[in-house]
């Protein structure tokens, strides 16, 4: 029951945030499909490389937000 309620909550959230979450899910799904199609799994090295990409995204967003915070302080 709790899981069903959680699923509904998540679906509501996803309906609002749709685009970015769906794009991200499909991006990961495509990477996994490519691995599974040749009988391999997504390795830790693959995951760390994907996280490095996330680090860049995070660094850029944080830099923009901090610059804006400094400008309004």
């Amino acid at each position, binding site marked *: 029951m709790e*899981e069903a309620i*959680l*699923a509904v909550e*998540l*679906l*509501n*959230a*996803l*309906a*609002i*945030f*749709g685009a*970015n*979450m*769906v*794009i*991200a*899910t*499909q*991006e*990961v*799904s*495509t*990477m*996994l*499909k490519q691995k*599974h199609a040749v009988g391999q*799994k*997504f*390795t*830790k090295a*693959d*995951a*760390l490389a*994907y*996280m490095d*990409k*996330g*680090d860049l*995204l*995070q660094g850029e*967003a*944080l830099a*923009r*937000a*901090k*610059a*804006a*915070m400094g*400008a*309004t302080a």
Partner: protein
Amino acid sequence: MRILVAIAASALLASCAGMPPAEPAQDLTEQVAYMEGQAQAFIRDVDQLSCYTGWDAKARLCVEPGKPLSPTAAVELLLRIKDGRQGLRAALVMPSGGGACLPNAPPAASPLACLQVATQALLEVEQVLRQAQQRKGN
């Protein structure tokens, strides 16, 4: 379980949007990859909802419509996402006996336990983003 539900819900939405179903995760590494994808989506959400110019601190409004997050709120959320992502990375490299997970939190008993803690931290960010998105719509 929350992780699986989150992935399943996202996959369901994707299928509703006419996209192919998401590939099931076969192990913890692949679950981490899905959660990292969600974390990156949250970073993009914060970026898109943040008022980088023209924030009126007194009125708590942005001159640009559809940007309900102040720069300070954006930084706070991005730092929380950073912590959650650090937990995901820790879960990935953690020995089976457990170890350090989130910053300023007790060690996790196992990689799976760490993944669950990191997921919970990221879902809390998602709730704040949902509220911001609702303000955007008002």
